[in-house]
């Protein structure tokens, strides 16, 4: 549990590919479709990459927040679908966005919990004296989904995001973070040690029921711990912005924690499970609601690792852009 003082989220932008896939065209299993809760998803075409989506979001956000590029002291790229196995995509982004050379740039390999972990890293860097940190979070999971895997093939959408974290006196973000590697095989792309493909091992495999039980065992406690640590009541949180795992999971969590589902922000119906980008996509998708009634938001990511993390922040002074297409 960590509280980082004098830090704020200055702006959030998200970008999705133009190509839309309607799940009704892929399956007539109504029970499964309703349970997953995904009506349509965006998927990349051709060579479009996670970095491309994140860079598009970042260019627009830097402009809208009116940020001098030289004031960006670090760029962090959180993704499981980087440009290359090496070098770090963040280094390529430094060049692509024409950021200064005396910048900290590195990648983080996390998925479902990646956004809130990324916020923690960025906030910690601000706490150590940096002025602004650019956090780019996204995934193009469609590239590693086996089309014959009916569960995963209906679930995942592609998206990228950009978030600017800055110094701000009197503003703070609280975090609870954790990891349990005993479940590392629950969500995995099992390439060999040289990164080469082996039959279908370059595809994502997910043990859905195991991930579900992990979430049910871990996340209600994460939310209770977060509220308790920050001395908050459930009622004092305006929005619960969870990783969009699937609709049934979100409803089950709301019921288990005894939270009003009306306070949950949702994007899974329109964009699917966008992995690490699901929290910023959800924020941008619900921007009008948040701007109309600003307030405290509890974000929570959980999944691949297995790992989890939460972050509580007021999004009152945050520039939230509408979802872009690229």
């Amino acid at each position, binding site marked *: 549990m960590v509280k980082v003082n004098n830090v704020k989220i200055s702006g959030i932008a998200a970008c999705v590919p133009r190509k839309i896939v309607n799940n009704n065209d892929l399956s007539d299993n109504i029970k499964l479709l309703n349970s997953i809760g995904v009506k349509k998803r965006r998927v990349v075409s051709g060579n479009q990459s996670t970095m491309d989506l994140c860079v598009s979001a970042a260019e627009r956000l830097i402009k809208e927040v009116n940020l001098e590029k030289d004031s960006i002291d670090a760029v962090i790229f959180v993704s499981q679908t980087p440009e290359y196995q090496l070098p770090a995509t963040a280094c390529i982004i430094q060049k692509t966005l024409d950021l200064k050379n005396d910048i900290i740039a590195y990648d983080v390999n996390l998925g479902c919990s990646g956004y809130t972990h990324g916020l923690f890293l960025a906030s910690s860097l601000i706490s150590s004296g940096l002025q602004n940190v650019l956090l780019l979070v996204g995934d193009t999971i469609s590239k590693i989904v086996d089309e014959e895997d009916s*569960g995963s093939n209906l679930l995942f959408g592609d998206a990228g995001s950009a978030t600017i974290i800055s110094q701000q006196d009197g503003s703070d973000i609280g975090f609870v973070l954790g990891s349990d590697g005993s479940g590392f095989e629950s969500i995995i792309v099992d390439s060999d040690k040289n990164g080469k493909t082996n039959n279908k091992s370059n595809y994502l495999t997910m043990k*859905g029921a*195991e991930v579900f*039980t992990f979430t*049910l065992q871990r996340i209600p406690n994460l939310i209770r711990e977060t509220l308790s640590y920050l001395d908050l009541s459930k009622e004092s949180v305006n929005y619960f912005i969870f990783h969009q795992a699937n609709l049934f999971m979100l409803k089950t969590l709301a019921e*288990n924690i005894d939270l009003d589902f009306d306070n949950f922000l949702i994007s899974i119906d329109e964009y699917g499970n966008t992995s690490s980008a699901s929290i910023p996509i959800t924020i941008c998708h619900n921007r009008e609601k948040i701007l109309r009634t600003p307030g405290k938001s509890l974000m929570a990511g959980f999944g691949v690792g297995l790992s989890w993390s939460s972050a509580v922040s007021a999004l009152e002074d945050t520039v939230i852009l509408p979802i872009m297409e690229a």
Partner: protein
Amino acid sequence: MDKDKILKIVADTIEVESVSESLELHEDMWDSLAIIVFIAALNKEFGLVLNPEKISSAKTVQDLIDIVAQG
């Protein structure tokens, strides 16, 4: 554990009026989605989180009752 409650949860999970202990669980009705729905319903009713591998290994409704009883 209340056996009737478990029978009701199984029936609701596979969307039928009622089930008996001897009902065999075939893959077409007891698929991965059914297992997740069953785990969620047990969690709501009894506060339990059961091992999905055990639940998927059940051959009959009676097996499920035994697994739930073991917690």
